[in-house]
């Protein structure tokens, strides 16, 4: 994070998750919903799965001009180094869990890798918010959100369920994640410690 009373508040949020869990779809969905070409939404990069990126200009938040940079980190292990760097430089993480029962092991592997990266990170722990994707699929393919809560050990962390393709739950997870990230980044979480 960077910022002071006169400086902008720039937050970097890394979107992690298993391969094909919906990370890039989430970012592209955000970009499409917000409208390409708008001044406050940067165009996403398509770097052949290297990473996707969207910036959001939130305007004045708590007396400071706030911008959020959202990066989707590829799930394939080939880019492990990139992922590590991004996680180390992040103010917060949104973990995308695929809601399909068949993907639970993939979710667990990705979540375990994230936990390793966060454990290796210097300084205070950073917030992690959860988004359970692909809720548009037939119910018989899905596991209940409460099951994912338990499997991933979500605890009191913010989370939302939805469908990145249709944009359901996207604003909710962004808001939940940014609230805890802003609290931590600005020191407003001091009372919670």
């Amino acid at each position, binding site marked *: 994070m*960077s910022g002071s*009373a006169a400086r902008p508040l720039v937050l970097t949020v890394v979107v992690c998750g298993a391969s094909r869990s919906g990370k890039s779809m989430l970012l592209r969905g955000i970009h499409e*919903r*917000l409208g390409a070409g708008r001044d406050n939404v940067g*165009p996403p*990069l398509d770097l052949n799965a290297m990473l996707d990126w969207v910036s959001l200009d939130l*305007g004045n938040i708590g007396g400071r001009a706030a911008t959020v940079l959202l990066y989707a980190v590829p799930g394939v292990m080939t880019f492990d180094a990139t992922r590590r*760097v991004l996680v180390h430089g992040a103010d917060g993480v949104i973990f995308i869990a695929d809601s399909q029962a068949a993907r639970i092991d993939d979710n667990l592997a990705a979540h375990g890798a994230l936990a390793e990266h966060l454990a290796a990170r210097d300084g205070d722990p950073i917030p992690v918010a959860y988004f359970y994707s692909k809720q548009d699929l037939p119910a018989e393919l899905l596991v209940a959100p409460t099951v994912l809560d338990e499997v991933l050990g979500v605890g009191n962390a913010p989370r939302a369920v939805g469908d990145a393709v249709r944009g359901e739950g996207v*604003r909710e997870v962004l808001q939940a994640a940014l609230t805890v990230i*802003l609290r931590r980044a600005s020191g407003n979480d001091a009372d919670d410690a």
Partner: protein
Amino acid sequence: MRVLEPWLAAPLTGLLRESSARLALVMTASGQVIAQHGFTRSLDVMAVAALGAGIVATTAELARLVGSSTDFGAVVHHGDRQGIWLAPFDTPRGRWIGIVVFGRDSSVGLVRMFFDRFAAEVRDAAPSLTPPRELLAEGFERELDDSLRALFGEASR
């Protein structure tokens, strides 16, 4: 030239002047841009920053895989008409990355020399303290809610 923090302007100006660089970008290891000169579009800046951070991370990992005890340091591409210098350097604020694009009126050696000087000046000039956390004004959650609802085209509550 655009700099996020004013104290960076002098070292970067020196690097540009002495090395005859056309473009320069300074960013954190995660790709957050701190200063830039010569880029005219924000997309270009962010694309170059993202690619640069990826290259440095990938190169460091490659060094580790082949058993190098240290990073490879700078990555240089020297084309017919222009060259690119890409190198990480340590600062009191953590590891940063510099990207310098130079033409025929400069050289790798020149860029290297003045980049090293630039990195040293940044190390000396960078405020070493961690910026104090500053409380956001009360009610920022409501402003966040309003901002996101506006961005997503939803009515405020």
